C-alpha cells in the first residue's frame, strides 16, 4: 500500500474512518464448538472521531477489537478500515494500546517506543533515538529515553505504551481499557493527557472502557453494547466543546449525561450486575 500522501509535512497521518456492517463474529473452541459473541454490529466511526465503546462485562469488546485489528476475520458482515477490509490493512495503520503496558523489560524506553514500528516494518526500520525524542516530550517523558521500564511508574509506562502506538503513525488507534490498571488519580490525569496528546495527532480513536465517566469525558460519541449475543444498544452524542478541562466532570450537564448513559447501560445489560460506574 502506498504510504506517501497519507503523511503530511507535520508528520500527521490522515485519519480514516471505520465501518462495521452487520458483523457477526465469535470464537471457536478447541473441539470446534462455535460460540457467537457479536450478533450483527453496525457501527460507523468518522475520520478523526473519538468513539468510546461501553457495555456489560463479557459483552465481546475484546472480540470487537480483534476484528478491528484485523487479527481475525468476522464470520459474517464487513469490518472496513478506511474502506478496506480490516484483515487486509497493512500492519501499523491500526495501532492498539493494551490494558497492560506490554513493554519489553530489557529495552530502554526509546527502544520500546520504536518496537511497534520495527514489527510493522514502518518508518526507518531500526528507528533512531532522535526520532523518538519529540514524541517522548509530547507524552511527558522527555527525560526518560534511556531508562528501563522497571524504573517508571504505572502511569509513565502507559505513556510509553501510547507513544509506541503513536510512533507507527497509525490512522486508527484502538485503546483497550488502557488506564484500567492505574489508580483513580492517575487515571484522571491520563485521561486529560490523552485528550491533550490526541489534539496534537488527531487520529481516529476507538476507546474501550468500563468507566462511563471516562467514556463521556473523552469521546465525541459513546456506543453502548448489549449483553451477549452483542448488538448495539444505542449511541450517545457527547455535546461538550473541546478542549475539555477535567472540571467538566463536576458540572450538572456532565452528570445528567452520565445518568442517561448509566440508565441505558442498565437496560442493555438486563441487570445491573458487572457494571462499574
Amino acid at each position, binding site marked *: 500500500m502506498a504510504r506517501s500522501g497519507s503523511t503530511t509535512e507535520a508528520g500527521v497521518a490522515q485519519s480514516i474512518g471505520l465501518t462495521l456492517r452487520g458483523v457477526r463474529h465469535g470464537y471457536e473452541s478447541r473441539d470446534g464448538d462455535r460460540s457467537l459473541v457479536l450478533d450483527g454490529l453496525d457501527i460507523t466511526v468518522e475520520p478523526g472521531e473519538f468513539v468510546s465503546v461501553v457495555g456489560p462485562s463479557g459483552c465481546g469488546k475484546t472480540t470487537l477489537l480483534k476484528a478491528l485489528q484485523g487479527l481475525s476475520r468476522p464470520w459474517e458482515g464487513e469490518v472496513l478500515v478506511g474502506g478496506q477490509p480490516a484483515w487486509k490493512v*497493512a*500492519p*501499523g495503520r491500526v495501532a*492498539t494500546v493494551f490494558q497492560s503496558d*506490554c513493554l519489553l523489560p*530489557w*529495552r530502554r524506553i526509546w527502544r520500546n517506543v520504536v518496537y511497534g514500528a*520495527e514489527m*510493522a516494518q514502518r518508518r526507518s526500520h531500526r528507528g533512531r533515538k532522535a526520532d523518538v525524542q519529540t514524541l517522548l516530550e509530547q507524552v511527558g517523558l522527555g527525560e526518560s529515553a534511556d531508562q528501563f521500564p522497571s524504573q517508571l511508574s504505572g502511569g509513565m509506562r502507559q505513556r510509553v505504551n501510547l507513544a509506541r502506538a503513536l510512533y507507527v503513525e497509525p490512522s486508527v488507534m484502538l485503546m483497550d481499557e488502557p488506564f484500567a490498571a492505574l489508580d483513580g488519580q492517575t487515571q484522571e490525569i491520563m485521561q486529560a493527557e490523552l485528550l491533550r496528546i490526541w489534539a496534537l495527532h488527531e487520529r481516529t480513536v476507538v476507546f474501550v472502557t468500563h468507566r462511563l465517566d471516562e467514556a463521556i469525558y473523552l469521546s465525541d460519541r459513546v456506543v453502548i453494547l448489549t449483553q451477549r449475543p452483542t448488538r448495539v444498544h444505542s449511541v450517545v452524542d457527547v455535546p461538550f466543546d473541546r478542549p475539555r478541562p477535567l472540571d467538566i466532570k463536576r458540572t450538572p450537564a456532565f452528570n445528567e449525561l452520565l445518568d442517561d448513559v448509566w440508565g441505558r447501560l442498565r437496560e442493555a445489560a438486563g441487570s445491573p450486575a458487572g457494571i462499574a460506574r
Partner: protein
Amino acid sequence: MLVLTGLMVAWHLVTTSMNDPMFPTPERVWQSFTRTWNDGSLMEAFRDSNSALLTGLALGVPGGIVLGMLSGYFRIVDRILAPYVNMMLVVPMVALVPILIIVFGLGTSARVAVIVLFVLPDVLVNTRGGVRLTDRQLLMMARSYGGSTLGVFRTLLLPTAFPSVMTGLRIGIGRGITGMIVVELTLVASGMGGFIMEALGRFRAGHMIVMILLIGLEAVVLTTLCVLAERRVLRRMGA
C-alpha cells in the same frame, strides 16, 4: 583458597605416609606435570580432545537452541520431539556410545557425534522452558503491530529465553566434557581420556592425576566464562 590449601596439606601428609607409587605425593604429580608439559604430550592430548569438544559444541549448542525454541513455540514440534527428548534425558547416553562407534567408526566424527548427543538434550530442554516463559500479552502486542514469526522469535522469545539458554549451555558444556572423556576412556583411545588410559597401562598415577586436574580446571574455566558472558549480556539488556 583455605579449603584448597587444607586439601593440599592433607594430600601431602597422607600420600607421604603411605609411600605407595599408585598414590603419588603432590611433588610427584608436579614432576609428572612438568615432564608431560615439556614433552608436549599433555597439550597434544588437550588440543586433540578439545577440537572434538568444540566441534561437538558448535553443532550441539545451536542445534539445541533452535530445536528448543521451535518446540517451545510450536505445539506440534513439541509433540513430535518430546518423546525423543525425554528418552535422551533418561537413557544414559553412555549406552549409545558403542552404537555411534559402529555408525561413525573410530574416528573424530564418532567423538563429535557423542558430544553432540550429550550436549543437545540439555540445551534443548532449557531453551524450551525459557521460551515458554514468554509473556502472552507481549506476544499479542507484537502480533497486533504485524510482527512476523521471525521478528517475534528474535525480539521476544530469544531475549526471554536467554537466561535459560545460558543455563542449558552451562550444563551442556559440562555434559559435553563428560561425553568427550567417556568416549576416549572407553572406545577411542585418544585425547585426554586416552592419555589417562595410557598412564594407567604404565602405572603412572601422577600422569593420571595431572590429567584429571586439567579436566576439572577446564570445566571450571568454561562454565565461569558462561556465567560471565551471561551477566554481561543481561546487563546490556538492562535486566
